[in-house]
């Protein structure tokens, strides 16, 4: 059959070349367009009814299965029994997700084998960047089936562990033990030895309190104490102090075994950070030598790391002093945590 126009036909224009066959996407788009436009009441009603019915069915499933995805009191008791039996000094419990803080109520707060030693429970959303000072093993209790549960904490712990034991299933809980590859065991923890330090504001000595803290006199009264305070929404055990202005707050620690570095963190306690205020400066001396300066910077709250090299003084026992000052006018409670690394 010829493609030429019929000379008896209505016109003599050459026929347009044949259109290529439509792609699969074009076919679907055309189908969807025909289906949805112009709006056909029955179709829209069916789509609407399908959406309502399927979301309703999902809602029923969600409610029906929610209980079994969360741990029961029996599950928590099983976890408590496991930790009580197997935990030893240097162990901590981590929970994931971090909101599952019923663990604090359900688990023992001290090691049954050594009741004088606490068994800390870490409710941290991220453990990858935590120092985990003094921790050798971490027991992770995870609610893997809970809505919003995510494996980040388990992954972070696995990445820094030499051995992993578990997971062991305890109902809706999973217990996994992580033996850390390189535990951070400091030579000296400054916040633990605050009562043996001496504290002064410039030349005015502060007086020790029965509870282990220090009370500094007027005209710049303040308390310096070892506390657990909120820094960027997480609990931090630290020396809580208020930098004076004008003047310097000086903490002198005698007879500190010196290692390769002095490592620590600063953060504003229980607040939104320094914002636009001036930074807080912390000058550190080991013996007579100025080893450097740390700074709590302006801006949002955070747990700011500093590390000062003390390797040339390593192996000796020397006094360490922290001189804290700020030109900011307002009282800004600061959390200072420092340890001497071996």
């Amino acid at each position: 059959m010829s493609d030429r126009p019929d000379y008896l036909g209505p016109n003599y224009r050459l026929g347009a070349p044949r259109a290529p066959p439509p792609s699969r996407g074009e076919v679907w788009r055309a189908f969807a367009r025909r289906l949805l436009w112009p709006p056909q009441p029955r179709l829209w009603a069916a789509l609407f009814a399908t959406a309502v019915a399927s979301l309703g069915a999902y809602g029923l499933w969600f409610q029906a299965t929610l209980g079994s995805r969360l741990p029961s009191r029996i599950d928590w008791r099983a976890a408590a029994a496991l930790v009580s039996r197997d935990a030893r000094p240097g162990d901590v419990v981590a929970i994931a997700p971090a909101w599952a803080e019923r663990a604090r109520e359900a688990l023992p707060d001290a090691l049954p084998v050594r009741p004088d030693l606490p068994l800390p429970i870490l409710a941290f959303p991220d453990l990858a960047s935590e120092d985990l000072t003094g921790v050798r093993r971490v027991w992770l209790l995870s609610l893997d089936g809970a809505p919003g549960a995510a494996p980040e904490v388990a992954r972070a712990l696995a990445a820094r562990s030499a051995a992993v034991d578990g997971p062991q299933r305890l109902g809706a809980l999973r217990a996994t033990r992580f033996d850390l590859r390189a535990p951070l065991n400091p030579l000296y923890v400054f916040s633990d030895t605050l009562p043996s330090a001496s504290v002064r504001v410039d030349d005015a000595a502060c007086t020790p309190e029965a509870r282990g803290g220090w009370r500094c006199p007027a005209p710049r009264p303040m308390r310096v104490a070892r506390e657990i305070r909120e820094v960027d929404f997480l609990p931090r055990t630290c020396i809580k102090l208020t930098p004076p202005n004008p003047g310097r707050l000086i903490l002198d620690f005698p007879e500190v075994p010196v290692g390769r570095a002095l490592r620590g963190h600063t953060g504003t306690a229980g607040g939104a950070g320094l914002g636009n205020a001036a930074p807080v400066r912390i000058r550190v001396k080991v013996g007579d030598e100025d080893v450097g300066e740390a700074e709590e910077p302006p801006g949002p709250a955070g747990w700011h790391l500093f590390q000062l090299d003390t390797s040339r003084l390593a192996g000796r026992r020397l006094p360490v002093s922290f001189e804290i000052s700020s030109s900011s006018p307002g009282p800004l409670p600061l959390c200072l945590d420092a340890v001497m690394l071996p």
Partner: protein
Amino acid sequence: MRDLRPIVRFRALLPRSRERRVALAWAAGVLVVAAATAPSVGISRDESVYFAAAEAYPRFWGEVVRAPSHALALADAYYSVNREHPPFAKLVYGVTHAVLSKGLGLASHAQGFRFGAFLFAALLAYLLATWGGSLAGLWGGVLAPAFFFFVPRNFYHSHPAVLDLPETTLWLATAYAFWRSAGAGGDQARNGRWALATGLLFGLSIATKHNGWFLLPLLAACWLLAAVPAALREGPRALGARFPSALLAMAALGPLVLLASWPWLWHDTWPRFAAYVSFHVHHENYPWSYFGRLLREPPFPVAYPFVVTALTVPLAVLASMAGGLAQSLSRIVRAVRGRGGEISLPTEVLLFANAVFPLALIAWPTVPHFGGVKHWMPAMPFLALLGARAIASAAQVLGPGRSGAVAGVLAALALVPAAWQTAHVHPFGTAAWNELAGGAAGAASLGMQRQFWGDNMIAILEDLNEHAASGARVWFQEATWLAVKEYQRDGRLRPDLAWATGPEDADISVWHYHREFLDKEFRTWTEFGNARPVAGAYLDETPLVQIYARPGAWR
């Protein structure tokens, strides 16, 4: 033979129309259920202050009856309590408390105040059923209240004697009266009566909470938008001819009702009114958790009210509401294009605008963002109406001849999971999150606000009563001193437990999980020397309230 006369007499009291009977049944049901479930709902921070105000205001009116000449002198004494909010709802709570608790001794003090809130909730149910019936027949009347009250946070708000549900009720009532005042086919006198009612209801609305002020410009805009097509056809004079008398009534009667009901404004009227306006215009911003961020200062995220609505309304109900909103918009488009002869453009514009405006208002980035969904709750009845109508219309289209059965199945699929969710989270309504969020647990993972207002402490009162040492000093944190006193007055908390101001002077600390107050919990750990709670209240394993105690303070 049994005497059937009482039943016959009772039946005679019932309204004749089926829609009215449905509305009445809903109102009675809501009243009974709210009253039955209220004792497990705790006293929130705001509510404790409103209790104090509600006790003071009726005393003033009692004094006025006894000695009218002293009324002006006494106004300040009684109305200085909680003068940052107008008095109408609090006065209602005061009256129900005076009658039921003090007068008849039928209810506890808290339940007496809250009976006023139950009445507002019942009125809301009645209005929803009535308007729903007018819009979509029997199923509209049956479903509209269900779509409102089977949302956990809305159900929660039908209990406390606070201002948000009364404001929502009066907003709806004003809009309904406005709609009736323009009723086609109604006689002029009846329309005039509805216009008068619109003015009075608007007055009560602004005498309840400041949100009410937005009704006047909103209803004016609704009228204008609906009148524009006619004005384009017939010329601008048509606008003047059709100007609704209800708007005039609102402008004239609203401020008068506010002034008459609020003796605080009887002295120094203008400076005090200016102070009231200034308080709300420059309202403090409370920190609020939103996807792991703590919102402290503006600009706040515009999407906030829409996202929080999407994460708190049960999904199938949300889908119904969204479908209803889309249906309303398409009807507006058709009416404007002159293709929907049966569509009432003013009605559609009124419903659509009221369903969207309260959300859009809070979306404004400088408006304070806190308080869960309560600040845009006036949108919820309209979304419920639209959702109910969407279900009824879909059923009619999909199953002509058996639309009732289709509507019933769809309604069951939408409402059964919602009712389950509502029952599951009760009484922790401020902590309710839907399936999309993953419930309370999923919302905690997302970093959303876990709760607010301090009322969930009620769940640990029994533990405190049973285990606290005699005369223990308790740091109640988010629960106010007034709330503690109210629990003690009603015999729900031991009277020997004393008020502590911080962890330093406390034997027991009641920690309410608030991300912005975490330092309070950690200070408690420091002071008490341990981080182990002795008891707690949890919703889907997320801690709401936990109790810490010093050694020896917990037996």
